[in-house]
């Protein structure tokens, strides 16, 4: 294979990993505070929809990004209120908001624009080459000639790592995820922290949706996230709830996806469906391998009951 093809596939991997990375980081924030993030698929979808509609109306990508974060956070608020306030089961609530988001976006798309399946066309955010770095061999075109949101996603991964390990708020947030009773005894309100973490995580996942609708495809279609939220969930598992490892997990799945797209063209003797299974198989493998010793936040999924 030529170097050029390899570079193209690597660059595509990074690009495909971007929405996954936003979603996974958002989910990670929520899970670190002890709320399972099964709903990130729906949050991405809401973000993709909100972003597309706002940027269509305002003719501004910035407005689109803002709207996508708000749309994601709106769905996150539903999850946060249901799980933290009413102690609804987190996993099943996640499934419920996913189906809700699918229905709402699909309904509003038709309701607002009429017709059967109206086509939205938006200009996509172009690549933003970073001077000097983008001319480096191999890593230049792979890492430094990407669209703006891609850089933002990777910066966010490092920022989240710092936030969760070095700052007072980040540590308090993780304490709530590990042992809410202990956190409560030090004056942190676990319910509130979980709500904030879930909503903030949902806003980030919403941005992941905006990557799809504003940067990758320039449109919105029904259910366009197409299971990416669940792949992000798998990436969180594979990264064992550590932001930088989750980032590597997203890159791995991005590469698998980029390979899957190219497999037919290259005539490789492996099915693209098998490649698509990889994220889930790897996640299951990691889950089985780490078993009870998982670095999963200890109190995840358990409602905090003040006694």
């Amino acid at each position, binding site marked *: 294979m030529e170097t050029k093809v390899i570079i193209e596939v690597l660059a595509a991997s990074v690009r495909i990993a971007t929405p996954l990375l936003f979603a996974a980081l958002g989910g990670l924030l929520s899970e670190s505070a002890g709320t*399972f993030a*099964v709903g990130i698929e729906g949050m991405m979808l809401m973000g993709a929809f909100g972003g597309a509609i706002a940027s269509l109306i305002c003719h501004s990508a910035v407005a689109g990004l803002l709207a996508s974060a708000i749309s994601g956070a709106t769905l996150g608020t*539903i999850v946060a209120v*249901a799980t933290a306030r*009413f*102690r*609804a*089961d987190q*996993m*099943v*609530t996640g*499934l*419920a*908001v*996913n*189906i*809700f*988001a*699918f*229905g*709402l976006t*699909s*309904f*509003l798309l*038709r*309701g*607002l624009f009429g017709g059967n399946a109206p086509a939205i066309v938006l200009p996509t955010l172009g690549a933003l080459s970073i001077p000097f770095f983008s001319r480096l061999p191999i890593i230049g075109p792979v890492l430094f000639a990407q669209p703006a949101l891609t850089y933002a996603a990777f910066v966010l991964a490092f920022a989240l790592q710092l936030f969760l390990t070095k700052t007072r708020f980040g540590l308090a947030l993780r304490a709530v995820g590990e042992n809410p009773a202990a956190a409560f005894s030090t004056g942190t309100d676990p319910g509130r922290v979980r709500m904030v973490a879930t909503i903030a995580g949902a806003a980030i996942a919403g941005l992941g949706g905006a990557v799809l609708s504003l940067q990758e495809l320039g449109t919105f279609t*029904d259910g366009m996230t197409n*299971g990416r939220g*669940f792949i992000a*969930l*798998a990436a969180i*598992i594979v990264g064992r709830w550590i932001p930088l490892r989750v980032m590597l997990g997203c890159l791995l799945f991005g590469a698998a996806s980029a390979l899957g797209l190219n497999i037919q063209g290259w005539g490789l003797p492996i*099915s693209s*469906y*098998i490649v*698509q*299974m990889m994220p*889930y*198989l790897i*996640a*299951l493998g990691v*889950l*089985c391998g780490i*078993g*009870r010793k998982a670095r999963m936040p200890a109190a995840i*999924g*358990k*409602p905090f*009951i003040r006694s």
Partner: protein
Amino acid sequence: MLRPSIDNNQREEKTAKIDKESVIAKRRWPIPGGFGVTTWRAPLLAAVAIGLALAVSAVPILISGKNPLLAYWAMLRGAIGSADSIAFALNKSTPYILAGVGVAMCFRAKVINIGSEGQIAVGGVAASWIALNFSEFPSVIVIAAALIAGAIAGAAWSAIAAVMRLKRGVHEVLCTLMLNFIGLLVVSEVLRGPMGEPGAGFPQSPLFAESSWLPNLFPGIDMHAGIIFAVAAVVICHVFLWHTPFGFRLRLLGGSPSAAAYSGVSFGRSVFEVMLIAGGLAGIAGAIEVLGVHYRLIEGFSQGFGFNAVAIALLAGLNPLAVLPAGLFFAFLEAGALAMQREIGVPSSLVFVIQGLTMIFVLCAIGIGAKERSV
């Protein structure tokens, strides 16, 4: 699993006490998180949740510039207006009820199996394999074999998750979720390879021979015999849950895992058994879907069924008998939504908004119930 040695007398005493206090007498509704609501309130909660969901769903209808009351009226008429529409809804409800009752049994024991979708998918694959390869046999034998193959495949798929749960301590939600996606891709893969119809534009298998089609219940009405299996499954699960030692163990596990351990209930065995039952039922649902609705294997035919199974089980208060009306409600909702779109142009995707909201409200209601109990 913790199993302290206590002599038989003590054990019986403990069992009897638990029996009277928390399991039989009050018939709690155990759900993930470890709390319950008494049974008589479950139908009320379900009705309130549905009402609230319909009320909130009126907002997007208003935004799209339509009258919500007219929309719901069109939906109702579309759902129950004619024999054909009722038959359509009953066909739709069959896989929901089969998978939903299995999920309800699992949730009773606090095994959060959300893997119906994958189990339905592989059940459909197994049934299709039988239908495609053994069509020269008499109709009854092919259909029976296909249903059994579906059940075995579904149970096996679910057993993978059970083994991961029991041997490696993986949360069953995560492994059943991942197995759903793998199951869907298995369908795509077999359609790309050995079972696909060459030259078809869509990933699908060739049409089955007519001998393997599930017969219609009444001549002239497009309603297959699958609903009989669904009703039978509901009745059998009801008897199992409330009138057998097996069902008692499940309820005990769901009500109080430590009490179950003290009275010698094997956690692993119960989890394994209930997962096999749920997987088998979902597999049969998959088989019925390919043999009775599509007459072929189609890519993504099981999509969305897993969510509906969970929603229906919760809406039914995890009560097998109540799964029947809950499943019918979901099916009629979907049938009605299609009619609503045809008649007054309100998009049928509204049905997902209603379903999602119903489930959120049910979950919150269960949570409130827990709050009351914990006080």
